[in-house]
């Protein structure tokens, strides 16, 4: 159990700076998800915490101690990799026991701890198999098992579910959450999937090109995005952006207006704040997505409950929203 603290953490590869200074204070037992598009520096950030990348400037603290110069093995962490990184020539048991053996743990205790972990992860009947004789989901569990048997103070996950199919991903997501709650170990979890981030995180760090655009609880970030990037990245379908002039916004700093799809109301033509044309609709069962085109060609999406009567494709309609649902962004993409 430990706290983790990052202090203006920066990373450059050669002359290229890829992490431009990240600060966060992680409480003991907290589940933090680092989310952002591919290439924004999530893995690099995580690997600096793990000690697999050197820190260019700033500090990483684990449980109050600066660990910048410590080797990975001296940081009391465990990591689950995207490709699982299992030892291919070892059995499942040996994969999980490897770290304990190196630490010189007594044989009986190793067996007991591996068995407990195997039970927890439903791997008991696979302990003698090699990784290549397992399915993707089982390999993923072995990687988790290897992390938990060592009882580290911090778990690090780098896109652990992205090699699994959609259904398994949802199932494993839930299992990881339960496991983390049960063990109460401070965790950093990297993903590019905003749904995974929303469902797993106590707090999430939304990364954009090496900058932590926003740090906060998922619903707080969803309801109150700090930047245009966050508003566009978190939520599916994404936030609609409308030219501030077209929408008749009085604020002189505002360049864009953001409204979430569920906050857009489709009304009869001539009413509401904007005129739009229904291009096509997607009925998903519980809800219907209506894609509309505005006067300046911008596409927006409205999300309506399936019980509402939808507008037919090709018809002219009006769009409206409540003042409280309006998000205004300035020239730099910041809220104003």
């Amino acid at each position, binding site marked *: 159990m430990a706290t983790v603290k990052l202090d203006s953490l920066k990373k450059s590869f050669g002359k290229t700076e890829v992490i431009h200074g990240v600060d966060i204070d992680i409480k003991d037992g907290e589940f933090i998800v680092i989310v952002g598009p591919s290439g924004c520096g999530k893995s690099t950030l995580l690997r600096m915490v793990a000690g697999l990348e050197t820190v260019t400037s700033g500090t990483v603290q684990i449980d109050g101690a600066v660990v910048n110069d410590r080797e*990975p*093995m001296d940081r009391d962490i465990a990591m689950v990799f*995207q490709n699982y990184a299992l*030892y291919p*020539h070892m059995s499942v048991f040996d994969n999980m026991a490897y770290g304990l053996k190196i630490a010189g743990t007594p044989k009986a205790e190793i067996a007991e701890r591996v068995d407990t972990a195997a039970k927890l992860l439903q791997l008991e009947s696979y302990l003698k198999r090699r990784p290549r004789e397992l399915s993707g989901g089982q390999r993923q569990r072995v990687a988790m098992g290897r992390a938990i048997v060592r009882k580290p103070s911090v778990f690090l996950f780098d896109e652990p579910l992205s090699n699994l199919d959609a259904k398994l991903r949802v199932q494993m997501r839930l299992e990881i959450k339960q496991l983390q709650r049960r063990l109460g170990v401070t965790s950093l979890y990297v993903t590019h999937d905003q749904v995974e981030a929303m469902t797993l995180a106590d707090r999430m760090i939304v990364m954009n090109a090496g900058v932590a655009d926003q740090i906060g609880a998922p619903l707080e970030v969803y309801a109150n995005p700090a930047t245009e990037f966050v508003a566009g990245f978190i939520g599916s379908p994404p936030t609609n952006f409308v030219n501030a002039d077209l929408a008749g916004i009085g604020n002189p700093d505002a360049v864009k207006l953001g409204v979430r799809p569920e906050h857009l109301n489709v009304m009869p033509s001539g009413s509401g704040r904007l005129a739009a044309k229904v291009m096509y609709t997607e009925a998903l069962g519980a809800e219907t997505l209506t894609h509309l085109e505005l006067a300046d060609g911008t596409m927006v999406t409205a999300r309506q409950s399936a019980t509402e009567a939808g507008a037919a494709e090709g018809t002219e309609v009006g769009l409206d929203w409540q003042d409280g649902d309006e998000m205004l962004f300035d020239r730099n993409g910041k809220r104003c």
Partner: protein
Amino acid sequence: MEKRVTFKGLWLPLLLVLPQIVITAVFFFYPAGQAIWQSLFIPDPFGLSMKYVGLGNFEYLLGNPYYRASFVTTAVFSILVTVVSMGIALYLAVLADRLIKGSGVYRTLLIWPYAVAPAVAGVLWLFMFNTRVGVVSWYLGLLGYDWNHVLNGEEAMGLVVVASAWGRISYNFLFFLAGLQAIPKSVIEAAAIDGARFWTRFRTIVFPLLSPTTFFLLVVNIVYAFFETFGVIHTITSGGPQQSTTILVYKVYADGFVGQDLGSSAAQSVILLVIVGLLTIVQFKFIERRVHY
């Protein structure tokens, strides 16, 4: 699904493999057959007629202390060449693998010795260790060591081993480096996080994962030491002093072409043929059963 291309007729496939069959027949089957035939005869002192002796040549060889000594010499020589060339190659490959930038330059430089013909490599090393004008022997002299591989059998062995191993290092290095780079980086990182330091990682992860490469190289290098080092030995020691570097393949030449004992030489060739055959079988058996991770 059948992935292979299948031919209906017989003539086209035969035609396509014909060049290979002809080459194998002319350069392998014919001389091999001739060696087997000749190994059953001894020529008279004037080389005018052949006398059939059955397995007499083999009986004589196996009872001959010089031939048995040559077996031991070959074993010592091949083990040393294999261990030295693979050991150094692995060491260099591990270093080059850790190096991200500039590894291309090192790789190119390290490959060069492989392009040097064995006889040329032999001459090169001979110059350096020449007892009178050699650079290395001169420095050894300064250190108070009197290098003379012309008289000292152990020094002669050392020199042919170094000269033979040198050209091999490149070849082994390439395979080891490729093997090392095929090991996923994240596996090594996982081991580092699990607490394994460099040597532990090498011993428990890297070396086991490299074992298919190592085994392949082991066989290939033994075959090399057995058969392809003729040029090195011929240029440096000619098998001497007192046969201390006469490996089996050199003895075939020395007895057959120098000593003109064609029957014995042919019998020795047949024995070598059997050894290559066995090594090849070992290798194929292994490749069949080899674990694919």
